[in-house]
């Protein structure tokens, strides 16, 4: 049976709050990335910190391991992960906003 027809006939309502949580669970973990032997999360705080960091910096990764990083390359990768993930998250979220 066609799913849309089934939803109409069952008078089912789209659960927006559940959708928001699901998308969070789907996309937030994708902000994690491996770099220089460590695991990182591309958060706004990390990106902001890197803006003012010197050429090389020692940072503790997600598991508390201190790692010496080249700031420019690391920043580029962190921004790439952040932008691609949040863009995909935003697009999928927007597509569901008008569903009833």
């Amino acid at each position, binding site marked *: 049976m066609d799913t849309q027809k089934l*939803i109409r006939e069952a008078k*089912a*309502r789209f*659960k927006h709050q559940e959708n928001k949580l*699901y998308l969070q669970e789907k996309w937030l973990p994708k902000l994690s990335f*491996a770099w220089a032997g*460590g*695991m990182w999360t591309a958060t706004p705080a990390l990106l902001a910190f890197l803006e003012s960091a010197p050429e090389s910096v020692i940072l503790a990764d997600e598991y508390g391991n201190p790692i010496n990083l080249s700031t420019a390359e690391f920043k580029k990768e962190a921004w790439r992960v952040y932008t691609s993930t949040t863009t995909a998250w935003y697009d999928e979220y927007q597509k*569901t906003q008008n569903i009833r």
Partner: protein
Amino acid sequence: MTRGVVLFAHNNGKDDYYGMAAATAKRINFFLDLPVTVITDTNSIREIKYKFDQTIIIEPDTTNQRKKSSWYNKGRYKIYELTPYSDTIILDTDYLINSTTLLDAYKLDTDFVCHNKVKWLLGGNDQEYFYKNFISTLWATVIRFKKTSRTQQIFETMGMVQENYDHYTNIYRFSGGMFRNDYALTIALKTVNGHFTNPGDYFPWKLLHVPLDIKVYRDTLTSYTFVGVDKKNEKTYYLTVKDTDFHMLNKNNFMELVA
């Protein structure tokens, strides 16, 4: 280093776990491009079109009971000895792969990783605890491990818990009777880690479960609609998910989706 996925598939007279394993294996090949080995028994195996990377025959432990039927889930701890791969992902056969997410497990610099957090799609409790709500249950649904002395200890300890399940039921005060690999894993990992928590042992994303009372419909190869009734107001709700792996408790519904 050899990578691959292993599935346990023992039919219990009610559910066709071998058929489910073949369906799951096809999706693993398609999305993850990994070989799949099935661990099964002579009563479950049958002629199918799909060819597993390897088929390993063992004698199933048939002593576990669930809802008046048998559930041949014991013996998962033997995976350490049985796996033909040095870097293994072990999955429940009813885990529906719809993305490449599991490949991210290989980016984690660890010899063992499992889920410590879950989300029930469209309902249910998010996390399960035991021992006076003190110990958060881990999930044996998806595990990735390399062969090391530590992972050998983890699986051997799971075996010890299985063999002495009544004893551990008393100590940890979870509901006894039906053996659960989730509980055995939780106790084993805690024991091997000296009752400390090692964050590196957990996937950085949640395990998504689909409760029994949620009906799932397939829209495309990777897109699904979940339909359920809210028991409080008896209204029907739905949710669509895309490119997301999830674990289905309803085996019949699972087979409808992969047919």
